[in-house]
């Protein structure tokens, strides 16, 4: 007591805390003070981490970091870093219990959709093979000591499981990987060319026509996509998805063929023979969180206004939508929005959009978020093309 009352420095002891302590003691007030500075101070409204509200963190990506995988990438978004490795393994069709049934049903499908169009039936079959046979197996691990909340070596947390599921679901809905890239064919030597001509009327149109006796699928490549979050500072999904995307773009599958004499699949060890996956589009994820100025807005029941009233009151901005939230901001907001967009010929296509955990973000805001995500797409495309 005595030491603090006898000032050594000429300035009187103040009750002010250093910013770092204030941030820990009053996190909500700290972020709010940054976002709504007093009008007299002439300061711009920035987040506590110095970013503007719709600004993403510095992103870097590096592909081919792991030598023992078929494809790999490290993506770092600010202090969140994700490592992704893609390993390809062979799945023989004779090991698939339901293979004959699947083939029969896909033939039926083909017959039905023949008049609709070839590309459509191909899409359907893609979906069938990749989804039914689980040819893509993503897994995300947070048990790396990436953040204090996750103990290393612990069983996968609910967040890790949820993220794995989201990655798998996105891989399927975007149909990013073509099933054709994952098939290993066997073409028997063409002994009777006349029979070949008679049988294959639809052959030029669709090579995957499984009723064709000449060419058959002998095996599939299964891609094991493992993501390790080695450092977690908020927004794990964007980093994880970007790393999956970069790793798949980097993935090379060796040339594989069915050897009839040995009755096995052989792979060429010649690097020149290996081919890359041809992915469909480039879906980019961007996540947002909504920070409410009024910390009690959620639980003061009587005060919650109707949606219309709320819109009219919006003049005094009471919440901010923060792009790419870091761990500190994520802890202060419950409402999340996540978008995955792709661009086709300059036109933005939304692949996935989700928001939950609150009621402040509505269509007007989501429209803006789509624009922000489209800008982010350009940025990420540049980064991924360079890596």
């Amino acid at each position: 007591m005595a030491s603090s009352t006898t000032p050594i420095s000429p300035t009187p002891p103040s009750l002010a805390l250093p910013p770092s302590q204030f941030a820990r003691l009053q996190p909500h007030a700290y972020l709010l003070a940054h976002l709504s500075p007093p009008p007299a101070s002439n300061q711009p409204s920035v987040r506590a981490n110095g970013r503007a509200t719709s600004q993403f963190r510095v992103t870097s990506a590096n592909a081919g970091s792991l030598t023992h995988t078929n494809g790999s990438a490290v993506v770092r978004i600010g202090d969140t870093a994700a490592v992704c490795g893609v390993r390809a393994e062979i799945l023989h069709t004779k090991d698939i219990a339901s293979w004959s049934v699947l083939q029969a049903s896909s033939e039926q499908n083909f017959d039905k959709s023949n008049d609709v169009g070839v590309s459509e039936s191909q899409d359907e079959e893609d979906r069938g093979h990749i989804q039914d046979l689980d040819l893509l197996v993503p897994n995300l691990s947070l048990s790396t000591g990436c953040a204090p909340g996750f103990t290393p070596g612990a069983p996968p947390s609910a967040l890790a499981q949820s993220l794995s599921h989201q990655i798998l679901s996105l891989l399927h809905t975007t149909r990013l990987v073509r099933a054709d890239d994952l098939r290993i064919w066997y073409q028997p030597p063409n002994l009777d060319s006349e029979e070949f001509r008679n049988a294959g009327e639809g052959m030029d149109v669709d090579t995957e026509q499984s009723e064709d006796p000449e060419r058959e699928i002998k095996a599939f490549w299964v891609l094991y996509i493992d993501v390790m979050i080695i450092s977690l500072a908020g927004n794990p999904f964007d980093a994880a998805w970007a790393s999956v995307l970069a790793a798949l773009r980097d993935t090379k599958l060796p040339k594989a063929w069915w050897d009839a004499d040995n009755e096995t699949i052989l792979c060429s060890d010649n690097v020149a023979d290996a081919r890359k996956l041809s992915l469909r589009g480039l879906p980019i994820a961007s996540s947002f969180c909504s920070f409410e100025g009024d910390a009690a807005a959620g639980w003061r029941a009587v005060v919650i206004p109707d949606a219309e009233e709320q819109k009219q009151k919006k003049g005094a901005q009471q919440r901010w939508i923060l792009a790419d939230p870091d761990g500190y901001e994520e802890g202060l907001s419950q409402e999340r929005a996540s978008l995955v967009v792709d661009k086709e010929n300059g036109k933005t296509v939304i692949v996935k959009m989700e928001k939950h955990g609150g009621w402040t973000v509505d269509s007007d805001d989501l429209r803006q978020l789509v624009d922000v995500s489209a800008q982010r797409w350009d940025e990420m495309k540049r980064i991924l093309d360079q890596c």
Partner: protein
Amino acid sequence: MRDRLQTRYQVQAQLRRPIKERPAHEKSQRETTLLLPTLRTLKKLPNFYLSIVNMVGPIASLSQLNRADGSASYKCPATGYSILGAVNAPIELPARRDALKPEEATVEVFVKPGTTTAGVGERHVEGILRSVLGKIVLGREKGFPRRGVVLTLAIVGGENVERGDSANLSQYLTILPALLHAGLLAMVSASVPLSMTFSATLLGVTKSGDIVRDLSPTAAKAAVSLHVFAVSSKNHLLLNESEGRFDFDTWELVRERALSVCQGETAASADGDVTMGEGTASASLNGFIRETVEDQVYSDYAFKLDSI
């Protein structure tokens, strides 16, 4: 139609347990404050019984389980899902760490698939449900801070019960509205204080660009994009989960459709009481949630109504 009306009343009669059997926790008092205002609307009962019978909508009932604090069953004929939900609140959580958020109740959600153990898909849905319900539960009311609100949802039936593995992912969007409704009704049944109610719907956009409501799992597979919306009783957008390929204009059309599905043409007056016209109330999902609760209140307070 008379048959259906009769079965409806029979179901009512089954639900109507003797008042003495009802667990007499502190819940009855709060329930009274929450639900008594709706008694005023009960005089209009004959009207909406008829309108319920006319529509092919979901079927729900409250407080079916005796041991849980609150429970609800929900069946959606369109998608074929049947969900049983139970809520225990407020209870002491053994693994509760006060460091998390001591000033609020923790909302925990467990989803049990019908035929297998829960997998990663269930974890994801649990997370979504937790964030939606956790936001509308008033976890700071008396008796709730530091305690837990535990919601368990069992998928007891459906034309295509989830396989457990993640092969059919879009199924989770098709089942999400049913899970949300069952969860909400179970919460109401357990008298958990809520800041608002909501209703949820699944809409799909087909290849020809039509917006279809309540798709079955097989129809959902053929849809270009699937959208799940939860709209609150005050017209807020509480939840949106959209998958597939679509642009924002399509999304806005779907969102407007979702609003009309959830709210119908009912006009909520200033005091939050729904003014019910002929048949309009039951056309909306919010109206359905409201009527389900009113039915339950009617059977619970039958003794009072009789004495009036």
